[in-house]
């Protein structure tokens, strides 16, 4: 038969409350102070990183404008950084302009499941030529040394300098889906060469781009731009 433990003395209970509340207050102050100090810096860094990524996938672009798809049209926005390009409410693209303020193309974010985890990418699209003109991996957790090459392998990145994404006759979808080329067969302009040892990651990239451009190309083809580059 176990002896029941003696109830805590009121003084001991007070000590516990004092410890929890006191430490809670101290920790709150520390976190709040660090948060307030670092948030502006983090936001600036994220914006700079995004700017650099957008300009890297739109060759020739020197500045960008943030656009959001709303009520069937693209409108300029100065809202905060978008976290995802797939959510309809925050679906955002970035229009790139050269030094003469002529539109170069659109940078679009997309993401999807890779071999191990979500892959987030940014790609450049030229609606006049119906091609993808650049590709950049924003984040991925693919296998180091294998799937991780989707962001660094030069031959793989060269696939996206002029990838054919022309629309079908109805203008509602791609004429040819983006796929991996087969070994031993001639590669078509809408196909990409995979990375040896990273077939799953390469196929994942093809699927991510295919799903994203199928959704955006029909919209962006209808957007009229003036010579000054204003997009309404």
């Amino acid at each position, binding site marked *: 038969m176990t002896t029941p433990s003696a109830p805590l003395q009121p003084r*001991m209970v007070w*000590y516990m409350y004092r410890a929890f509340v006191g*430490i809670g207050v101290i920790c709150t102050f520390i976190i709040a102070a660090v948060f307030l100090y670092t948030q502006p810096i983090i936001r600036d*860094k994220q914006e700079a990183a995004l700017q650099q990524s957008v300009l890297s996938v739109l060759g020739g672009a020197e500045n960008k404008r943030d656009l959001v798809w709303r009520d069937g049209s693209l409108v300029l926005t100065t809202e905060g950084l978008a976290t995802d390009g797939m959510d309809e409410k925050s679906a955002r693209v970035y229009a790139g302009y050269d030094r003469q303020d002529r539109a170069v193309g659109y940078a679009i974010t997309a993401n999807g499941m890779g071999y191990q985890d979500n892959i987030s990418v940014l790609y450049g699209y030229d609606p006049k030529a119906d091609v993808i003109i650049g590709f950049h991996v924003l984040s991925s*957790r693919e296998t180091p*040394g294998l799937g991780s090459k989707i962001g660094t392998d030069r031959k793989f990145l060269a696939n996206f300098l002029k990838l054919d994404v022309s629309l079908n006759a109805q203008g509602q979808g791609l004429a040819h889906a983006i796929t991996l080329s087969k070994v031993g067969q001639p590669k078509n302009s809408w196909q990409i060469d995979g990375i040896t040892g990273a077939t799953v990651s390469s196929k994942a990239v093809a699927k991510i781009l295919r799903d994203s451009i199928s959704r955006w190309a029909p919209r962006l083809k209808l957007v009229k731009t003036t010579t000054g580059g204003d997009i309404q």
Partner: protein
Amino acid sequence: MLPSNIAPINISINVTPVTTTDEFIKGLWRQNPIFVQVLGMCSTLAVTNSVINGLAMGLATAFVLVMSNILVSSLRNFIPRQVRMACYIAIIATFVTAVDYLLQSLSLTLHNALGAFVPLIVVNCIIMGRAEAFASRNTVTRSCLDGLGMGAGFTLALLCVGLVRELLGSGSILGVAVFSSSFEPWIIMLLPSGGFFTLGLWLLLMNWIKQRQLVGVKVEFEKEPSA
């Protein structure tokens, strides 16, 4: 009762007081958290696929260790024994959150590379272990030095493992290519299995060195001459 031909042995033990410097140095070698205490294995294996990642994780952990030791030591007389673990966790989690924000503000690339392993510093055994075993029973100065020593030892160990893995797995050190283009990297070194191999070999080396040091120790007894 002892036989008559065996005289009592007088043994005198000189105990040298532990200096404050020793509190720092012990974490580097004698009580190294990875090679001796074998703590923090998850972080060690996960982030040492490159030297820079190992260095960043080591410094982040050292910061959390030092700050949590200081705060735990400062509040040691106000934290009741019954709730000490919950209080330590709250303190450690606070500084891990601070480190996460600071890392993002310093380098987004590094923050993305370390990924989910920064928040996992909260459950790193080294930090909770030192808070419970040392900071809660010693002064702020000694606790700070203990945190610095353990953090430096942890960082040193991560660098040792990361150096081998990056050199063989990527052919580079700190991103700078060391070998010629004909070198074929050992991809396995970048995978968890390579981490296990490398860590195992370092542990083997450290234990071998310790064994050699122990063999060199002489034990002398004074024996009274028999009457």
